[in-house]
């Protein structure tokens, strides 16, 4: 064949490839036109996660919307739609910016292997739950449940002993296919998660070690059977938050998935299902997902909780009512000063989540008015905050976040296993100087593992090691601590007369057994990844070196730190962070000795029987008040024993178009993004 012929063949082949490549996509990419009604936003699956993930199945914070009702219909696609005009389309459209695409619209998968933060923003809170957190205060309040559950009772059935509880459900709450939301739906969801051994977040919601089965005593009365007595983390702050899926829709899908063979294949079959016309209940219905571009939820005009009013009082009382439907009050008699009051919407006709490739592009879109609010787990950087603060029509808000950055010790190595050494290190770290002077206020010093914003569980009365001391006092105190514990120096550090600097750095530090203190590394993220943590690491290195502790800051990649600390446990000290849940049962996960094995979350190998006892008590506790006292005690214990030196957290900065929208409140732990942008409460000017 002649060259021209070959060339023609090549070009035509390429053209053919292009055509073939297009064809199957056309078939696959049928646009789903359904109305999935989003139910009360829920706290979602509880979860703490190591900070630094691009996506994380973290616990969603409180959605203020109290309950759910479904009334959605499938909307058949019109034949040839007329091009919509932008003017029509912008009417009451709440536009949010997100930085990554969804990976699924399947709720089983979203709480399983697809638990990304972006899925959480769009899908989270989209299903009925028995109980939820109230806005701002995070009171535990009923959602689908009509009232609080009965106390856990021991009961023997068929020779087997269970711990049981009963939950009354609201009547009249319907799925969008017209069926009532009943106890059967709850039982079906929980049984499916347990039987298919669903992965990801599911085991923390339906814990197979506790949950046995659930029964519908009648459509509106649920009875749950636990194998062993569940603590707050497993029941009230665990399974009670389980999203409930429609049995009528999912039962045949689950039945088909169960035919897929091995359990992993069954899960895969379930996760692979693309929901179409899935009945739901809530303020918005999932209507469209244009992959890589945007997702849209449309308002449900029959939302049951629309026009319901929530009132919170300074006395601690919580009241919720909907005229002619229900009234609920808890935590004291309603009355006195109101701290928060709002009426549930939704007021927007639609919520659109536009996907932007970078935070800079999202901020430009916000400034231009293309979006009203941006959802980002890390909030705005200081530079962007300053850029937006002077902009007309924009309001910048700052909230405490639900995270913590810490310095951890490897208890398997000397001298990190020495309490005096750890306390000396904590004394030498001047968090206030770093956060206010070096970092110019972008971080907040912390002393306990529960953020101050988590008011109900935060213990302000913990040992504040080193707080308020001058440089000289810190060094003197740390040196004394080490001396008292038996540490010695070849050359002891000497401080200047005015106490402002070290004239003679310490040298030749020896442990109580006479061995020299070995060279140690502090693994910390590099400045490119997190300048705050790397700054802390560099200063800690400097301060420790001044007193003769031979330590070196090793600034490296996040994944490498994770591998060395959690997978290999080959390290001396490390600086990382956690995103935290509201209910602080993570204290058990991080510090109980049972989690000290490879890949466990107690990577430092902290092992204190006294703390283990406190942690076990917390896990088993079923009373909130008692649990609170236990958490307080654990915080005080940890602040003194110091498996972690808690360093700091950063406030969460967000911005919204105040010339277009308004929220009933903007003060919220974790920011408005933690409540998915308050879609059911946002109003338009």
């Amino acid at each position: 064949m002649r060259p021209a012929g070959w060339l023609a063949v090549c070009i035509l082949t390429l053209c053919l490839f292009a055509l073939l490549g297009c064809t199957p996509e056309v078939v696959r990419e049928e646009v789903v036109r359904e109305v999935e009604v989003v139910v009360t936003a829920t706290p979602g699956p509880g979860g703490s996660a190591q900070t630094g993930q691009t996506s994380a199945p973290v616990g969603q914070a409180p959605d203020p919307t109290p309950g759910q009702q479904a009334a959605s219909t499938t909307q058949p696609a019109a034949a040839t739609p007329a091009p919509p005009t932008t003017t029509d389309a912008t009417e009451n459209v709440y536009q949010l910016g997100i930085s990554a695409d969804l990976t699924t619209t399947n709720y089983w998968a979203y709480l399983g292997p697809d638990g990304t933060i972006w899925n959480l923003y769009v899908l989270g809170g989209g299903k009925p739950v028995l109980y939820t957190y109230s806005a701002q205060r995070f009171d535990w309040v009923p959602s689908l449940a009509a009232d609080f559950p009965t106390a856990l009772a021991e009961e023997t059935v068929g020779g087997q002993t269970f711990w049981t509880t009963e939950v009354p459900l609201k009547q009249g709450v319907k799925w969008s296919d017209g069926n009532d939301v009943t106890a059967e739906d709850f039982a079906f969801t929980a049984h499916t998660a347990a039987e298919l051994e669903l992965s990801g977040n599911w085991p923390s919601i339906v814990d197979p070690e506790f949950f046995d089965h659930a029964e519908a005593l009648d459509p509106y009365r649920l009875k749950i059977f636990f194998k062993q007595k569940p603590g707050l983390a497993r029941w009230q702050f665990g399974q009670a938050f389980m999203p409930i899926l429609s049995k009528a829709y999912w039962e045949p899908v689950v039945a088909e998935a169960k035919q897929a063979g091995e359990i992993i294949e069954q899960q895969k079959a379930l996760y692979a299902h693309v929901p179409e016309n899935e009945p739901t209940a809530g303020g918005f219905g999932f209507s469209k997902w244009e992959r890589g571009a945007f997702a849209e939820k449309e308002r449900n005009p029959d939302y049951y909780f629309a026009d319901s009013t929530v009132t919170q009082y300074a006395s601690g009382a919580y009241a919720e009512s909907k005229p002619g439907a229900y009234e609920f009050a808890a935590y004291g008699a309603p009355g006195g000063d109101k701290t928060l009051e709002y009426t549930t919407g939704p007021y927007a006709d639609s919520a659109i989540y536009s996907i932007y490739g970078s935070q800079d592009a999202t901020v430009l879109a916000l400034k231009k008015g293309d979006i009203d609010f941006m959802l980002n787990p890390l909030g705005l950087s200081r530079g962007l905050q300053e850029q937006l603060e002077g902009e007309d029509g924009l309001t910048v808000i700052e909230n405490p976040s639900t995270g913590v950055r810490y310095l951890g010790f490897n208890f398997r190595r000397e001298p990190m296993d020495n309490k005096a050494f750890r306390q000396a290190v904590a004394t030498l770290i001047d968090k206030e100087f770093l956060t206010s002077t070096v970092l110019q206020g972008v971080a907040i010093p912390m002393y306990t593992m529960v953020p101050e914003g988590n008011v109900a569980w935060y213990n302000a009365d913990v040992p504040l090691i080193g707080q308020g001391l001058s440089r000289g006092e810190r060094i003197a105190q740390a040196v004394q601590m080490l001396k008292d514990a038996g540490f010695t120096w070849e050359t002891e550090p000497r401080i200047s007369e005015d106490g402002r600097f070290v004239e003679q750095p310490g040298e030749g530090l020896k442990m109580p057994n006479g061995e020299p203190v070995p060279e140690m590394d502090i693994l910390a993220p590099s400045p490119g990844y997190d300048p705050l943590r790397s700054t802390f690491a560099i200063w800690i290195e400097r301060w420790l070196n001044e007193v003769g502790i031979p330590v070196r800051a090793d600034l490296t990649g996040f994944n490498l730190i994770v591998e060395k600390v959690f997978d290999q446990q080959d390290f001396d000290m490390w600086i990382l962070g956690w995103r935290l849940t509201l209910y602080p049962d993570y204290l058990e996960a991080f510090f109980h000795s049972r989690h000290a094995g490879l890949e466990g979350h107690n990577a430092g190998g902290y092992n204190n029987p006294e703390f283990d006892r406190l942690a076990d008590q917390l896990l088993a506790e079923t009373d909130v008040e008692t649990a609170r006292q236990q958490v307080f005690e654990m915080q005080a214990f940890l602040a003194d024993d110091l498996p972690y030196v808690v360093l700091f957290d950063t406030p969460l900065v967000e911005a919204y178009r105040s010339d277009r929208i308004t929220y009933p409140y903007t003060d919220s732990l974790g920011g408005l993004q933690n409540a998915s942008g308050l879609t059911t409460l946002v109003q338009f000017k």
Partner: protein
Amino acid sequence: MTSYLARRAGQMVLTLFLIVTLTFFLVQAQPGDYATFYSLNPDIPAEAREQIKASFGLDKPLWQQYLVHMKNTFTGNFGVSFGHYPRPVMEVLAERLPRTVVLFLSATAVSFYVGFFLGKAIAWRRGGVLEYAATISGATLFTAFTPAFALMMIWIFAFKLGWLPVGKFLDPLIWRGAEVSANHVFSYMLATAAVFIAFAFLTLLAARKLGRLGTGRMPFLVIAGGAAVIPIVWAFTGVGYLALDILRHMILPIATLTLISFAGTMLLTRNSMLETMREDYVMAARAKGLPEKVVRDRHAARNALLPVITSLVYSLIFAIDGSVIIEGVFSWPGTGMTLLEAVRSEDLPLVMGSMVFIGLFSLLAHVIVDVLYVYLDPRIRYQ
């Protein structure tokens, strides 16, 4: 030629094997694996994490994972993406590929045209203002820091002037009522481009066969006529307004890419032209008294085209790779961003799938260039 192509096909398979192997071990060399993401959530029990590892096949020894991936690669089944679990890799790639191809093919074509046109002009009129202006501005833009320049373009044209959208490839307010997906429209656009290119090529081929009958402006008029039919056809599809929206979103990234990259083609054309203009046949053409335009376009530029076309073909094929930076800044979710996300999260099947595609197309590009050389320069023959 046939035996040459057969030999090249064998080389391609071997090279592809090496690319896939290297990619696999490079990704594996990163600390952690995809399941690390789950190991950092204390609420996910150890058993559940192990189960996730098992479902991804990450619990198997490295050599077994390697064999699985090699088998998948050479059977065309790239497995299931971890990050989009349980979507097949091919489905994810098929979703992203049209977007990248549409944007980067268009940008490459525009950039090539601008570069070639300017290169030709400045070579012909050396020392003029145009040469200095084009060379200085082209070289300056060529060395610009791409993310900053792209953001500056958005800031000026989208934010300050408000003429164009801030990134993305569509306007949700226009598309929220659409009954077709964007990939539908992208596919139609690609199909249109493919049909048009084939039509233009066949027209030119036919013109060549017709000899004198096919000379002059006739073939170009036929091609122009074909081009004129395109908007008419689109108008009847009912999705023309959606394609227009995509085109509107393409303006800024294409302009940015063109400004950044036209200098390469321009300088290549200029140098090639300067070489060609010293040839005897150019002097002969001038001596015959042919108009300057004819000498430049028909005699000098055509012969100077060879290295430029080679560069263009490579650019076109590498367009499927996209650009992580441009796609990121302009929020254009194509294969470049997909590959970056996959590497970051160690979504091994998706990385392997992307690399195989890129490798395959780049190898194919080399073969096409070889064939093209023979077509463009009859003196070249492969044994």
